[in-house]
């Protein structure tokens, strides 16, 4: 019967708030502040400039992966293959570097490899209609296998020193990886909030069929987020490679889970259509601060894992309670 009425749902909750203020990000920031306060009280070293920079530095790799993950999650997907995609990109980059290819070309080669992984995922998802979880689960094994086969399972050493000193350097005391990821975050914030593509991602994740009927290029949007995720995984891999001085084909184990955790703490909804660049950054820093603080207090690694799990679940419970029905 044609009598379904929507009128009852109009009495919008929190409609009195201007849409521009992102409550969710404020909540994440509050959570971060709480963690900072607790550790600052427990350990005087925690709240010093060197340690704070250390936290940012330690969080930068996860933040880089998590930003890509955030875009994928907003589009309604998931990318489980980021760790192996990072490994294969690192291995490819290192192989090019040790073969004497000019450094910028080798770097492009590494990032291109990550993007190719994403393109493969994206095409299977957008054109073959496979589920993102399964496709990227396949990618997870596939890219790891390729990295291991290509290197015979051995790390590639001999990373050029100028690349290593660049990654390990700092500008006015701020570590280069933090600057790189910060710059990426600024760009991605603009993309998500100010570009048509950002609207497309949010629309595809929010209601794919409605977006398609409204003329959104759904396939192109989906493929692009996976390519971005692959590319960002490669950048994270390069940062780690620069710090370690080697490209290990086993690099990036379980990175996808940390990245998903950071995105979720930052307000990304695994149902799609919701997520924030700032939130994800804060989420990554929350996880980083937690590990750093617990390490400073000499808490065993087992308990760090425990704390991480608790934080994720508490964050989701608060999320649920404040957002009302999901």
């Amino acid at each position, binding site marked *: 019967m044609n009598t379904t*009425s929507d009128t009852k749902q109009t009495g919008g909750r929190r409609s009195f708030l201007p849409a521009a203020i992102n409550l969710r990000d404020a909540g994440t920031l509050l959570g971060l502040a709480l963690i900072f306060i607790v550790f600052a009280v427990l350990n005087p070293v925690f709240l010093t400039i060197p340690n704070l920079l250390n936290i940012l530095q330690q969080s930068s790799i996860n933040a880089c992966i998590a930003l890509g993950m955030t875009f994928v999650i907003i589009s309604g997907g998931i990318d489980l293959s980021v760790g192996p995609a990072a490994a294969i990109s690192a291995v490819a980059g290192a192989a090019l570097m040790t073969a004497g290819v000019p450094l910028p070309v080798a770097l492009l080669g590494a990032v291109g490899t990550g993007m190719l992984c994403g393109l493969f995922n994206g095409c299977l998802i957008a054109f073959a209609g496979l589920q993102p979880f399964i496709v990227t689960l396949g990618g997870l094994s596939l890219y790891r296998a390729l990295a291991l086969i290509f290197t015979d399972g051995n790390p590639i050493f001999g990373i050029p020193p100028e690349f290593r000193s660049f990654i390990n350097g700092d500008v006015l005391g701020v570590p280069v990886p933090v600057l790189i990821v910060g710059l990426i975050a600024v760009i991605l914030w603009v993309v998500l909030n100010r570009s048509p593509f950002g609207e497309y991602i949010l629309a595809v994740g929010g209601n794919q*069929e409605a977006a398609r009927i409204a003329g959104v290029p759904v396939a192109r949007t989906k493929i692009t987020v996976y390519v971005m995720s692959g590319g960002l995984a490669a950048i994270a891999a390069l940062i780690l490679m620069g710090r370690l001085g080697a490209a290990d084909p086993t690099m990036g184990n379980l990175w996808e889970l940390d990245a998903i955790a950071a995105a979720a703490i930052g307000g990304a909804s695994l149902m799609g259509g919701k997520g924030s660049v700032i939130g994800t950054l804060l989420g990554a820093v929350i996880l980083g601060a937690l590990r750093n603080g617990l390490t400073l207090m000499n808490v065993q690694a087992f308990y760090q894992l425990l704390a991480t799990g608790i934080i994720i679940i508490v964050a989701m419970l608060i999320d649920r309670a404040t957002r009302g029905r999901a």
Partner: protein
Amino acid sequence: MASDIIRLAVDGIHKGFPGVKALEDVSFEVRPGEVHGLLGENGAGKSTMLNVLSAVLKPDAGEIRIDGATIRPSSPKEARAAGIAMIHQELQHIPGLSVAQNIFLGRPLKTAGGLLVNRRAQERRARELLAELDPDIDPGRPIHELKVAQQQIVEIARALLDDAKIIAMDEPTSSLTPSEFDSLAALISKLSGQGVSIIYVSHKMDEVFQVCQRATILRDGRFVATVDLAETSEDEVIASMVGREISAERHVSHAGTDVVLRAEGVGDGRMIRGANFDLHKGEVLGVAGLVGAGRTELMRLIAGIDRMTEGRVEVNGVERRFRTPREAISAGIGLVPEERKKDGIVRDRSVASNIALPCMKRFSRAGLIRRAHLRREATSLMKQMNLRPPNVDRPIGQFSGGNQQKVIIGRWLAADVDILLFDEPTRGIDIGAKSEIYDLIERLAATGKSIIVVSSELPEILRLSDRVVVMREGEIAGILSGDEIDEGRIAALAIPQSKSRSSKQTAEPVSQP
């Protein structure tokens, strides 16, 4: 069989939704073993009545009695316990499970200990039940491997397991072949012989006359008559189904002579076959037909949402093949979909974002959205359309149905498409917003937009259309223009007639607007 005892009495049922009175004072009676038709046009209140009977909806007033005792079920489960079973048009079973598991879903037979499901006992009992209905159905088979007709029989078995006194069937033959209908009819008469009363809802007059003894006719949510079908003609029944006064004034035509859209032999290889029609500049072309006649499907083909497998579409004289809605939009065609929530809105995004989706380029410079510009344009557009509240930053999900509809229409105005397809534009919209949308459609036609309006509500079609395409069973049954447009002619074309099941006549009256 039919006696004067009353099995089911429906007495003075009222049911309203915000802005709509779906049922007003509906009463009828069903005798034991009677097959009782429930007839009416789309929107007459049949489904609401069934939902009240099966306690999916709670009536605002009135009562239901079974064998003289008033029942007040508060859930479908309680209605079943009281003896009313419902066979839905969309069959409700769990695909992976076996026939027996589906029959015993929610009330399994237990083993002696009471902990485990006794599958063997279930299958035995299911076999007993099915032996009477259709012995070919193996209770151990996964239900999704059965034909639809057999799945329906399983649902009937489920109803019998509950000792249903009344089985209500909603459009039971919508996906059956004629021979499957014959076996269903035989089964129905068997059930009625055993004293089970059947309430039979169908659009198909020949079926109703074949299986039902009496029928209750609803119109606009009101009771019209309960008739003895042996003493009533098909035409009389149709007349009382559609016979409402033609209320609204006809609009002024703005149709020109240029053909902006031409469909030739359009089909999808499944439902739609050989659809031919023209749409002129400034014209409002109505598309009438029963639910399931293929109207939405045809619109989706034109809008590039589903793939056309046969025929051709010309836009402004140029042949176009759309692979995506995006391509149709760039050719100037936009669809306002029937299911707004599913196909129209992105709920959590703002009104402005929802408006801008098809035409991001227009609102961007150097790859970035000009938010202020977008907000200004969206605000002025929505002011013209009287969006309430007039706040384009609010998520669209927080607006009422009518206001959401204005945003979707505004989206196509912002994208400046020339051809607008409206699929049930006023479904789920209260009366005030309805007339605003009618006015809007007329204003759009006056400014030279060409419009197609699919509607199940004849007054809407009559009020808006310059010409009317009538669809029936996936084909265009006829196109009416000028004085030919009246309820009787539309109904005659839309309702599948008893004799002419081979409805291959390509009625296409001369149709200059």
